């Protein structure tokens, strides 16, 4: 009962949120030889954010080169997007995290959100 009340409140609340899935993406072969691909999905429920930056990092949080349609994605409020990330097979072996970070415009103390999925 208690949990269902909390769930109802969460579902009904006007939350301002950033979401990215899957948590554990996997690489698959692309149509180009030697190039791997993975597909990610994002949902923007933050009215104060329209852009998210995509980054791929190794275990030490150093950037790993990758290709996607846009490294900064324009994602309007309440919009979903699916995007493909391409990487050479050599670099894909090093990639550990794929992250999306909100790009902020606002006043006073702002909250930047960042979600990182992990290749396992």
């Amino acid at each position, binding site marked *: 009962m208690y*949990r269902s009340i*909390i769930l109802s409140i*969460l579902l009904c609340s006007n*939350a*301002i*949120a*950033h*979401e*990215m*899935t*899957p*948590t*554990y993406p996997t690489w698959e072969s692309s149509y180009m030889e030697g190039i791997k691909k993975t597909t990610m999905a994002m949902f923007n*429920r*933050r009215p*104060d954010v329209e852009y998210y930056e995509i980054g791929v990092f190794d275990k030490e949080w150093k950037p790993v080169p990758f290709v996607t349609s846009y490294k900064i994605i324009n994602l309007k409020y309440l919009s979903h997007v699916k995007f493909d990330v391409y990487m050479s097979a050599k670099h894909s072996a090093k990639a550990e*995290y794929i992250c999306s970070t909100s790009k*902020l415009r*606002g*006043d*006073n*103390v*702002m*909250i*930047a*959100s*960042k*979600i*990182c*999925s*992990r290749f396992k």
Partner: protein
Amino acid sequence: MKYLLITLSLMLSATTAYAANIDITGTVQSRCIVNTDTAGMYGNPNAYTLTTVPASAGQLPIVRVDVSLANAYNAKISYPTSFSSSPSLGDTVAWTGAATVVQTSTSDMSGYQAASSLSGAMRTYALTVAGTTWFSVASVATYGGGQQKPFPGGSYKAVVLAECIAQ
């Protein structure tokens, strides 16, 4: 008449119901959602301090993190260590702050704050239980390198970073 019978038989055959077992399959995937519940605001209790502490007319930013599976994510909450925009500052700003768990959806999460670790301005929480956690972030900026110089007039902005990192 013959054509009518053929047409009717075709219509009936097209609407014949077939019984079959249809499986419903589903997968519960881990997922993290970072919610910005309350935007923060700096209060200015004296000329040389900006603070989000409510007692000083500030407002603590509140971040809510929802996870659908246990042990899939770490939450990392960082207080600001610089202004993202401000008037020109000729002197140093001293930054302090703290991230604190202020509410949880289940009592199983009550140990999150004690089990968290601090590295510089960032506090890391292992989200070991599925559910929702609310974090508040206190931030205090003091101007003048300990000499209590007044902040120049203008607009000041700073950024709290809330991260959800897959384990």
